[in-house]
């Protein structure tokens, strides 16, 4: 049940992020949407590793099967890469705003 609610929340977050990326015209809002969507994908991976009644993936922490450690390792990578690329994207947005004086994606496209 926890996994199902986690998955539902993950899909909802991804949908919310995609919606913001599609409908918003400000590129900072688009990046925020990307942020939320990637949070959804990270939650999705974590929820995938869930097994009912499992223990953490550390040796000697009690009986029973351990959770799948592979999605957790992938998520560790994903979070850091996500942080780094978001920082780079925001730096590029700062440069773009300095040069073009707008953050409106539609106007940025039209002015070219």
């Amino acid at each position, binding site marked *: 049940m926890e996994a*199902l609610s986690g998955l539902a929340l993950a899909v909802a977050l*991804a949908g919310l992020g995609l919606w913001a990326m599609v409908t918003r015209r400000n590129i900072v809002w688009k990046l925020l949407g990307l942020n939320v969507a990637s949070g959804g994908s990270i939650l*999705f991976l974590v*929820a995938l590793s869930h097994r009912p009644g499992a223990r953490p*993936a*550390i040796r000697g922490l009690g009986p029973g099967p351990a959770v799948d450690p*592979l999605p957790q390792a992938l998520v560790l990578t994903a979070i850091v890469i996500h942080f780094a690329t978001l920082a780079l994207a925001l730096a590029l947005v*700062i440069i773009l705003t300095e040069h073009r004086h707008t953050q409106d994606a539609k106007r940025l496209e039209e002015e070219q």
Partner: protein
Amino acid sequence: MRWALTFGLLGLTGLLGLGIFEIWPRPCFPDPDEIALAWGVENSVAAIVLGQRLWDTILEVLVYVLAMVGVRFFLAGLRWQTKLPPVAETPFFRRSADLLFGPILVFAIYVAASGHIGPGGGFPAGVIVGSGLLLLALAKGTEQLAAELYEPKLEGLEYAAVLATLVLGALVLIFGLRSATAFVAGNILIALEVAIGAWAVLHRFAAARGEV
């Protein structure tokens, strides 16, 4: 059409998630305990991150450092012309931030050094140091903290840590080094890189606020 595609993709993702309930057959992975045992550590996630999928981690560290170099490069030219007025925080807040930073640093070192036997690792430890630096920056002001930290030396330290990570990765990948010491060293090096990168982002974004 666009909406149908979006919802179709999301529905497909949700269907994939049904694998949890054994509706789809799961691929058969080895027991997590065996992976941890094979690498001589307790934490299976650490055994995967720094052992079985070490290529992933090395390339991730390279991507992270490249992104931080990009942030430094793009924001180097942009500098706020006038200096910010000093932060109007109370002396109590400044002193308590100073006092708190030591325990935060010790906790981060603990998290990094015990990442192979329990929950923790290099990436969380680096982020803990980064948030400690954020606390200091809030209390003292970014400019003063930057003057105290002396960034060129930090940058050199970051590149040295990347080189050391590559050497460690070569030792593990080519020469088959398998010991908990390698895990501790790798975690601490990664924590160093992540913390310095987080500080670079914090400082550059604060210094290049710009006139928008």
